[in-house]
């Protein structure tokens, strides 16, 4: 039974990637595979470079165990911060939980199948971290059959430790959010942002303290052995091929996990069926406010957006980061500008306005709301389709909603940045207007992509905004456009024009491309929307 549920859940997670469109020549996973390869390759390259330095440094000071202990710590930190909300969505927020509870299946089996899916995802995500680190280790001549066997076991057991902590935090988070009556979305977004900033802090701290790790290896080793016993045990086990330490590591990994899953299993049914903090709200009749049709349709999209924290966090992370960045710029103008100046000074011809324009565009490219709005209609699509509203008007409302929550905050960030960083009107205009041209293209492009790759049968909105093919294509497509412009500039553009003028050309190109996509949406896009579900 657990196996069947596991396969069912895993298929649900990857459904949109594995399905082939009716007229598609290639299955979607071919395109998704290319994007995944790109992301995994980038992460793997960074790990390869980092650990190539570390293996030499730790070998020199005789603390080779620190190599694997450090890998375990990095993998754990990134894994926990990245998986808490996914775990909360899968375990406690899945729409099929009640349907499964109604079947003659033990709640523990439902939980076990979901936990196994999370473990599979966790293992898959740790591949680009683990493979280059293991490669560096083996290349340095440290591999023996026993050590390799321990490494392979560690590949599965390290995600078990990560998942234990993620499960616990997801449980606590769900319980807290369920008890909050108002502003649940806001609370969840704030908590998630704290996690996100932690994520960024861990990653930058690793980079910043790289030198310290190499020069002060002995002190770091002492600190790790004191404060992170499971990772210390893993490092010593692999480096010294010590079975005793390995057994200790296994105990550290398995015992809390089994205990936590056991406790959750015994309460899973109660957790899922408990009241979610809903209370009867007294209705006070009053004459309602009347809105126009467009305002009503946009309002509907925004209501949906604000009510789903996972959508806010995943589909408009660029807006959140832009606002945080703008806040940082207001609070610490000198520090941020000093850092930007150093970056700009490293590349000949690069000016602050050019740098911040590209940075704002890159951050905004991670806003993929429009690539999810068609899919988010889900089982309520019949409402939009049965109302006397044209499909083009519905799509326009989706576009406006995207622009309101994506381009709006980015525009604010642009204005703040222009105030802080631009010396003249030309720089000001560049920073404010060029990113908006790009955002118009990504908004329209996201909508077009979602109409081509819709997913209406989702069980959790995470599947739409985080794991769907359209969200992946939108985010990497947007980044790809920025990178593409950069490559064209380096190859040809720099020989012809200044970076500022080139960026204006990019903005114009974005507007022209946006007009083409808008035309496509008005004809084929509308037809696709009307065919949905037919």
């Amino acid at each position: 039974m657990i196996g069947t549920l596991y396969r069912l859940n895993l298929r649900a997670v990857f459904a949109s990637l594995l399905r082939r469109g009716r007229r598609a020549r290639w299955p979607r996973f071919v395109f998704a595979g290319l994007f995944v390869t790109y992301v995994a390759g980038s992460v793997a390259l960074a790990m390869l470079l980092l650990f190539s330095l570390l293996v030499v440094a730790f070998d020199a000071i005789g603390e080779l165990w620190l190599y694997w202990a450090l890998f375990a710590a990095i993998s754990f930190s990134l894994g926990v911060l990245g998986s808490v909300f996914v775990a909360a969505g899968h375990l406690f927020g899945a729409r099929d939980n009640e349907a499964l509870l109604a079947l003659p299946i033990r709640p523990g089996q439902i939980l076990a199948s979901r936990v196994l899916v999370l473990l599979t995802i966790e293992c898959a995500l740790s591949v680009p971290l683990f493979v280059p680190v293991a490669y560096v280790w083996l290349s340095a001549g440290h591999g023996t059959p026993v050590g390799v066997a321990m490494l392979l076991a560690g590949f599965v057991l390290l995600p078990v430790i990560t998942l234990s902590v993620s499960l616990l935090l997801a449980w606590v988070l769900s319980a807290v959010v369920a008890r909050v009556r108002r502003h649940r979305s806001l609370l969840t977004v704030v908590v998630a942002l704290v996690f996100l900033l932690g994520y960024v802090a861990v990653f930058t701290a690793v980079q910043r303290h790289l030198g310290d790790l190499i020069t002060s290896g002995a002190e770091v080793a002492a600190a790790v052995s004191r404060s992170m016993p499971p990772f210390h045990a893993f490092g010593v086990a692999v480096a010294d091929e010590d079975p005793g330490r390995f057994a200790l590591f296994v105990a550290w990994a398995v015992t809390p996990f089994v205990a936590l899953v056991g406790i959750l299993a015994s309460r899973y049914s109660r957790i899922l069926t408990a009241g979610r903090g809903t209370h009867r709200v007294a209705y006070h009749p009053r004459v309602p406010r009347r809105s126009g049709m467009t305002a009503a349709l946009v309002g509907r999209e925004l209501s949906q957006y604000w009510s789903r924290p996972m959508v806010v966090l995943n589909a408009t992370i660029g807006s959140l980061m832009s606002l945080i960045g703008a806040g940082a710029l207001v609070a610490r103008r000198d520090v941020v500008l000093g850092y930007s100046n150093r970056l700009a000074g490293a590349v000949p011809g690069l000016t602050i306005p050019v740098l911040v324009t590209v940075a704002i565009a890159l951050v905004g490219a991670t806003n993929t709301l429009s690539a999810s709005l068609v899919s988010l209609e889900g089982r309520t699509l019949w409402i939009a389709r049965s109302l006397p509203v044209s499909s083009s008007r519905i799509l326009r409302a989706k576009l406006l909603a995207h622009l309101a929550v994506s381009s709006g905050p980015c525009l604010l960030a642009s204005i703040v940045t222009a105030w802080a960083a631009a010396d003249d009107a030309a720089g000001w205009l560049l920073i404010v207007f060029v990113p908006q041209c790009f955002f118009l293209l990504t908004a329209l492009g996201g909508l077009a992509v979602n109409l081509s790759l819709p997913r209406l049968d989702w069980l959790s909105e995470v599947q739409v905004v985080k794991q769907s093919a359209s969200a992946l294509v939108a985010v990497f497509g947007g980044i790809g456009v920025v990178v593409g412009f950069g490559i064209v500039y380096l190859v040809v553009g720099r020989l012809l024009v200044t970076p500022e003028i080139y960026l204006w050309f990019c903005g114009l190109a974005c507007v022209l491309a946006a007009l083409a996509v808008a035309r496509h949406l008005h004809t084929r896009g509308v037809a696709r929307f009307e065919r949905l579900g037919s």
Partner: protein
Amino acid sequence: MLRIENLTKTYGDKRAVDDLSLHVGPGEIYGFIGHNGAGKTTTIKSVCGILQFDSGTITIDGHDVRREPLLCKARTAYIPDNPDLYDFMTGIKYLNFIADVFDIDAALRNERIHRYSDMLELTADLAGAISSYSHGMKQKLAIISALIHEPRLLVLDEPFVGLDPKASRAVKDLMRQKCDEGAAVFFSTHVLEVAERLCDKVAIIKGGRLVAHGPTDEVRGDSSLEDVFLELESDQQ
């Protein structure tokens, strides 16, 4: 009011509705009966412009569903068999959204919302989130939202599922009242006793084709609708 001529709709190789024709006149309650998978919901969704069909014509109040979809939808109300509503809204917000789309005046919508929600005993729950509603409450909300714009044609897919007896009775009274005002009601049901008592006309569909249709008394003859339905089912096998 509703005229379906030679409607055909296929899903891949399966012909869900096959050359189906029927007419629903003003003031008529028309029952649409058939076993599971017979093609009732496909027909209903085609009428409401939710599904695109392969061939045939559907006109509502003289307007072609394909050529003038918005005009047709403005005259129609649709209630699905499983009312998945916007669970991110409260009941009253949902009703206001629907009223905004139909451009209903504020005072008029206020009067209609409260008239129908009082009738279906949902007024006290209008401020609650739809996500906290039971199936029956969602069904009631869907019915109220369908009546806000005073449609000329009501299309209902299994409207009594999930309703308590009192609400069920209220919906039946509403259907009759709307027909008395000149509207038409076209609804599918598995409850043959309800169809027999409520409908002026009935149509029985099997395998996507109409096997009997006409005034309820004529279709039923001297026996019950249930007997006729079961007989037609066995005849076709």
